[in-house]
């Protein structure tokens, strides 16, 4: 358990360094995204919405996948550590999901001429948002630890089924949403646009780590408070 103790100590100290790093990366990312990157030949300046929309969607999907694996681990191994990490990841995941939906909607108006379409990608992202809400609500509504572990594991596993639908919906169905421009095999985005996208993604990941550490520390202090109450 020495490792866990060290991780917990690190999580307290790391916050301010991650916060400083996040501000630096975000500032560079914003300058790149809003000033230095070129306009798209087809979408013109509206393409800049991509620099917040895409990182938010990627981070949100990544966080939910992590939550699902951790929740399953918590249920199988009866591991409180996993469940606390999963619980601490959820708020930033939900906010990123909402950012992806809202900025996607704003981007949709000048591009497609509508704020919303029941397109497979957009709808599956909305479903993911519902799973995030259910996951967070389950932690608030249930007090029995065993029930929480089971319920959150069920919610996150059902939500995990939705993740491939989010990812491949643009390939499986004919959708308004454009297909993926960046895949494991390469990118069709020019480096002048790829660089700000990568920097903004790094900023979003750093912010999610920061929020995770703060929430995780809150959970640790709650447990400490319960420990004092037992005396």
């Amino acid at each position, binding site marked *: *358990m*020495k490792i*866990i*103790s060290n991780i*917990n100590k690190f999580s307290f100290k790391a916050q301010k360094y991650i916060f400083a790093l996040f501000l630096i990366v975000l500032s560079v990312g*914003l300058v790149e*995204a*809003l000033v230095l990157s070129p*306009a798209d030949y087809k979408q*013109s*300046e*509206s393409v*800049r*919405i991509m620099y*917040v*929309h895409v990182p*938010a969607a990627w981070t949100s999907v990544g966080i939910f996948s992590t939550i699902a694996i951790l929740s399953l681990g918590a249920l199988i*191994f*009866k*591991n*409180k*550590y996993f469940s*606390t990490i999963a619980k601490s990841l959820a*708020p*930033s995941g939900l*906010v990123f999901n*909402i*950012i992806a939906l*809202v*900025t996607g909607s*704003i*981007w949709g*108006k*000048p591009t497609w001429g509508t704020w919303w379409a029941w397109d497979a990608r957009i709808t599956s992202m909305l479903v993911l948002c519902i799973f995030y809400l259910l996951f967070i609500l389950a932690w608030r509504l249930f007090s029995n*630890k*065993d029930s929480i*572990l089971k319920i959150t594991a069920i919610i996150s596993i059902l939500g995990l089924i939705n993740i491939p639908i989010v990812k491949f919906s643009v390939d499986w169905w004919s959708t308004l949403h454009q297909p993926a421009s960046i895949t494991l095999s390469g990118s069709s985005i020019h480096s002048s646009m790829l660089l700000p996208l990568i920097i903004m993604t790094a900023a979003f990941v750093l*912010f999610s780590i*920061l*929020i995770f550490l*703060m*929430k995780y*520390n*809150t959970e*640790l*202090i*709650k*447990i*400490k*408070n*319960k*420990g*004092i*109450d*037992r*005396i």
Partner: protein
Amino acid sequence: MIFETLNMSGYGIYVWSSFLFTIISFVILYNVINYQLRKEQRKFNSKYSKLNSDELKLIKKQKIYEDILVFSVNTKI
């Protein structure tokens, strides 16, 4: 020059509102989580300061102070 930057060929309202929404969401989330953290810290400090020497010894023996989270749901921390 400033107007052109803000206007962004007529797409400014969409671009700026997207970035503004993102930044506002970040600020709200950070403040909410920070408030929760500070609240729990204050609660802990208040409870901890009221403990007598025997209780302090007991609390330091609690497993929570070594690894806080243990690998059992049923463990009484």
